[in-house]
């Protein structure tokens, strides 16, 4: 049984919006990390993850997201999230991710606040 995560990216000037579809587990988390690190290496310092089409996450996947946030902070950048289900939002808060990354209800609000 597999629940493969799909990732797509909307690249903008110094920023990017990453869209995920599917289960963020260890494999999905690594896929997000690989794409995020490519973007960081390419100069992206503001990254918005739109999880509109992700309904399930697990703690291993979230731990990888935290590693991505750490690396972005080390580079002087920032990561934000939008379009979380209420349960994913709650899970992010439990694991402390919400303390280090902004969370927006929708993409429009995130884009406006992040100026991307």
């Amino acid at each position, binding site marked *: *049984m597999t629940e493969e995560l799909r990732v797509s990216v909307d690249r903008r000037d110094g920023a990017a919006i990453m869209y995920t579809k599917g*289960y963020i587990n260890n494999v999905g988390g690594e896929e997000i990390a690989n794409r995020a690190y490519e973007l960081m290496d390419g100069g992206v310092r503001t990254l918005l993850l739109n999880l509109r089409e992700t309904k*399930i996450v697990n703690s291993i996947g979230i*731990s990888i997201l*935290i590693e991505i946030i*750490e690396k972005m902070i080390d580079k002087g950048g920032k990561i934000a999230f939008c379009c979380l289900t209420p349960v994913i939002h709650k899970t992010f808060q439990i694991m402390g991710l919400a303390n280090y990354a902004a969370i927006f209800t929708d993409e429009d609000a995130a884009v406006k606040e992040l100026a991307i």
Partner: protein
Amino acid sequence: MTASPELQMELTLPMVPDIEIAAARAAGNLARELGMASESIDEMAHAMIEACINAREHSGSKDNRIYVKITGTSLGEGNSRIDIWITDHGRGFNVTEARSRRQQLGTVHKRGWGLQIIEAHMDEVSIETSEDGTTIHMVKYGKNDD
């Protein structure tokens, strides 16, 4: 008087990647039969996923199986209750130590959050663990969808 479970399901699952999704879907289907609200089902699914991952990743199970039992009960007046037991035949674990883990950025403590997530998403959680295995019993109460 305690209501008798109306729905019951037992699964024996192999410890393979993403098997937790099968367990969560089974519980979700049973809860939907009772009419439980989708957000309660979603919380229950995330708790089940963590319980199954803990069994798969950390139990050191001898038989590489996860045993799942799910019961569903209508409580009347649009309320329902789901009981879930997740059992492995692994080596057990220290519950106090697992509960005390705290995550901080910049530390190695990013992993090991399963139990905290389970307890946050479920209404009741009890754990029986020994060197012969672990059973985690979780209860979710929910208002039914209109």
